[in-house]
């Protein structure tokens, strides 16, 4: 079992959370002008780093808030969590 620190509720069991994919994927500024290839890139293409990765998580079983987390994809260690309206923290 891994504890994930919800920015509201504090450390909770991982089963209370749902994963929401990569964070900070900006919606296209001018959707009308996108080609099919651009759309595919926006919808499906994500970075897949080994190491710290900014992700969206939802505390589904409790406060039901979405938040961002920086998780090391190699160790699963959660390096930082921050609310949707907070800037991405710097992690070394």
């Amino acid at each position, binding site marked *: *079992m891994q*504890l994930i620190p919800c920015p*509201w*509720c*504090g450390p*909770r*069991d991982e*089963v*209370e959370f749902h994963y929401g994919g990569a964070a900070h994927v900006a919606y296209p500024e001018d959707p009308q002008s996108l080609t099919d290839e651009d759309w595919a890139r926006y919808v499906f293409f994500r970075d897949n780093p080994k190491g710290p990765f900014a992700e969206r998580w939802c505390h589904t*079983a*409790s*406060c*039901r*808030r979405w938040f961002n987390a920086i998780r090391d994809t190699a160790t699963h260690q959660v390096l930082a969590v921050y609310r949707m309206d907070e800037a991405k923290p710097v992690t070394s």
Partner: protein
Amino acid sequence: MTVDHPQRRSPLAHLTAELAATPVGVSLSEVPFLTQLNLRVDPLGRAARAVEEALGATLPTAANTAVAAGDLDVLWLGPDEWLLVAPEGRQESLEKSLRQAIGTEHGAVVDLSAHRTTVELSGALARDLLAKGCSLDLHPAVFTTGSCAQLPLAQAPVLLLARDSEMPRYWLLVRTSFAPYVAAWLLDACVEYAASGP
């Protein structure tokens, strides 16, 4: 011919005897038919202040805390969401006063009284019992009196309220359809205390 009037039965009415027969150190009972209203409102807005005035209670903004005002409990569910718990039969008057307070401002009041029933769990072993089914830190210095939490207990979603953390007394607000399962789990989990009791 006589016609029987339909009688309201609480979700755990059929387990009253079993719940009353727990080993020393654990007390279980159902607190049925409590008034439960879900409230959503901007905590910084005018409506929140009007609601607080109408309730005579503050809306707690610290996560996972509850405040009590007389026989009303206000439980934090989210940054803009609370559950108001009051004795049976108060839903209509409470809902009306909340709607009046919110007025034309942005907010929502939903009567959820039939959504959950409540199990009161108390006794010296209450904390040990809960710890078998959840990973929350229940130490009285952490989960203090007036703390609340939504979490899975034995995989069933419950809303846990510490009414007293020193002389352990908890309320478990459980969905109606999950209540018999949670009650059966609690009864099963305290079987071992019968053997080891004083």
